[in-house]
């Protein structure tokens, strides 16, 4: 039997749908603008501004990008490599850390947890960080500078710890021990399979972080062949911004190719497009991840 809805529920539904609809349209609009601008001729953008429907349709921007696409392809390669390697390595390290930190028989677990947690409150700042990477670790201009710094995030370690804590009862570990499993076997045969949802969440957070990272390229990479995708895009925009901001007195004239407005937009589409299509499929893990994060820390 169907429960009859009263009118207030209906009204609430209507209101909720309207608000959500309006919200999603507001979110969609910028994307539409970017796509339409990338299909507009540059001259029309500068003269008339952005329009939802291109006022002067042209594929020139895409033609120019794909005339010599090696930069974009290389940047894609770097980002994919860094994301895959970084996520796998990071997951391995963080699950191990999380597993060890939640074992009740690890005497100093609270001290080490605090030690990790401490770094979220107090950091050395940019200059010591920079010196550590360039002068002591000598990571400058190598993939290491892109992968190492983000491998372990305190927040994710603590998330992993509390997830394993709640998903794997102590008794399971104990019985495995009685059956003769050593600590590492327990880790990868018992704990890992039970912690798959946690793995998915942490892995997603990590992968997203690597995918969106531009800062490490900006600081540590001088070789254009090793730029991450996001940095490649960001740097193009920054080059134009620099040209706009530098006064006439500096007398700087850049002779290299400076991308036009429509080219910037086309670049944004090329760079964000693929991940945008991937997003609907992985979105549900995000929702799950957020609820995992809500479990006690």
């Amino acid at each position, binding site marked *: 039997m169907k429960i009859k809805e009263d009118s207030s529920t209906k009204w609430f539904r209507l209101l909720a749908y309207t608000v959500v609809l309006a919200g999603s349209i507001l979110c969609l609009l910028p994307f539409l603008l970017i796509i339409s601008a990338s299909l507009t001729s540059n001259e029309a953008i500068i003269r008339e501004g952005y329009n939802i429907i291109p006022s002067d349709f042209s594929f020139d921007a895409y033609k120019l990008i794909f005339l010599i696409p090696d930069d974009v392809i290389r940047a894609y390669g770097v980002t994919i490599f860094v994301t895959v390697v970084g996520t796998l390595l990071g997951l391995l390290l963080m699950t191990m850390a999380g597993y060890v930190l939640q074992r009740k028989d690890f005497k100093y677990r609270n*001290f080490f947890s605090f030690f990790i947690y401490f770094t979220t409150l107090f950091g050395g700042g940019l200059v010591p960080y920079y010196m550590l990477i360039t*002068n002591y670790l000598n990571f400058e201009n190598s993939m290491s500078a892109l992968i190492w710094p983000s491998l372990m995030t305190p927040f994710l370690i603590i998330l992993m710890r509390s997830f394993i804590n709640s998903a794997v009862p102590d008794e399971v570990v104990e019985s495995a021990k009685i059956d003769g499993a050593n600590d590492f076997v327990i880790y990868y045969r018992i704990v890992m399979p039970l912690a798959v949802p946690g793995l998915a969440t942490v892995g997603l957070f990590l992968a997203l972080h690597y995918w969106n990272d531009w800062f490490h390229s*900006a600081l540590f990479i001088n070789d254009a062949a090793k730029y991450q995708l996001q940095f490649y895009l960001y740097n193009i925009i920054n080059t134009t911004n620099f040209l706009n901001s530098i*006064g006439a007195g500096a007398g700087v004239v850049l002779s290299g190719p400076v991308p036009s*407005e429509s080219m910037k937009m086309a670049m944004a589409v090329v760079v964000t497009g693929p991940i945008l299509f991937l997003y609907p499929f992985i979105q549900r893990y995000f929702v799950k991840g957020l609820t995992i994060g809500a479990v006690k820390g």
Partner: protein
Amino acid sequence: MAGIQKKAWALVLSLVLALSLLAACSGNGGNNEASPSPSASPADGQSSEGTTGIDTSKRVELQLYMLGNAPKDMPKVEAQINEWLLEDLNATVKFNYTTWTDWDQKYKLLLSTGQDVDLIYTAEWTQYQQYAKNGAFLALDELLPKAAPALQSFVPQEMWEAVKIDGSIYTVPSTYKEYVTGGFVWREDLRAKYNLPKPVDMDTFEAYLAGIKANEPDMQPVAVGAAVDATLEDALLDFYRQNVGALPYGLLAPYKDPSNMVNYWGSAEHLEDLKRFKSWADNGYFSKNELNETESNQDKIINGKAAALFSDNPTRFNSMLNQMKTLHPDWELGYHPFGLTNGYATPVHPIHNGFAIPKNSKKAERALAFYEKLVTDKRYNQLASYGFEGTNYTVENGYYKPVGDNTTNGFVREASNSWAWRNPSFMIFEESYDGIQAIFDELDKIQVPDIYTGFAEDYTTYQAERAALEQVMKQYLFPLMAGQVDDVEGGLQTFMEKANQAGLEKIQESYKQQWLNYLQEKGIQ
């Protein structure tokens, strides 16, 4: 309580341990590097090569840092240069580029963290004067005759004098003479079409803007952009009030009487000028949304959205003109340098482009010797400025001609940002450069020295106030300049109140004192 204390001790202990580990690493790192000890060089004469009086027995890799983005073919150019350099100086060089993303932060990090940097670009807009004053660079006075005698004699003595900060040379100036002074830019074809006056002063400029507004309602008469402090205030002070340079903190010192430094902000003149900008905004000469503009003013001229620029330099004007001509052959641009109205023009100060050696460079001698090659050796100089002849460019009738266009050519003219190692005798220009040369020739007749750029401000005593003032400017002065405040007088009063709270008076007083000291020291009246 005891538990917490114990934990805290453990924490401190582990921190100390971690630090000592790092320190150990640094010790090793230092030893591993091939660093020629400075004391050994002049003594053993056998290893030094004939022309240069420096020790080149050990092979080194030099790290050169330039701003901006590296051109695509830079690795090939670098490989060729290294081939020559190994033979000449037993060294290789790596051209590093900072990109334009957070370049100022990166620049600071490069100089302050003791990284391996041997040559770095300097200019007044990268704060050469402040960095030199704070000891970021190596003094070159004694190194020059030993490591780069040819370079020392190549750069005129007065240029060496001009780049001195506190009595020492910290950078190798570029000898290419150019003007980056301002001038009106307008659409000559439209001016002729509507029979408008040629902009030579404020009145004719405003008449031109009014004429465009009346006849071309779809066009924005003048492009200003978000940086209104530079495009409106600095331009007006430069042209109309003949300021000695783009002085900070609302100070004004006329070029003809530089010791007479006055507070411009809050003065009657300031109010008058703000009202002028307000009238421009009210008349629709520029957009109400100007502070949020992201497109460049130059692009707006090229594409016919705007009809004038208040101020731009000859080089940029010329590149604008050429880009516009390729899109719209029938359009014309006019240019009137401010100098022709004011009767004087200042060529760029030697500080404007240069290369310095950071203080912690361990290969200073070789770096300077290499830089000498880069400037005075034609092979090095042209390759590092224009790429490979035949592949990247050809020379026709003495003019530079690129192969292909911007997207296909991996090294267009000066794409390596070779501003600092320009050598006038090796430079090849595009045909369109004749337009700039014509302007320069005119300005040469009325040239006077730049007396502002040599001044090195020391803001350590008012650093906090300086940062606070910047915020106040953005919040209260920018909307005033962009004509967004209806009550100009009241708005100016609010701005002055806030600026004084931020410590404007303290800043101005200290700056003035330093300025007067500088004038006295240099003997400028």
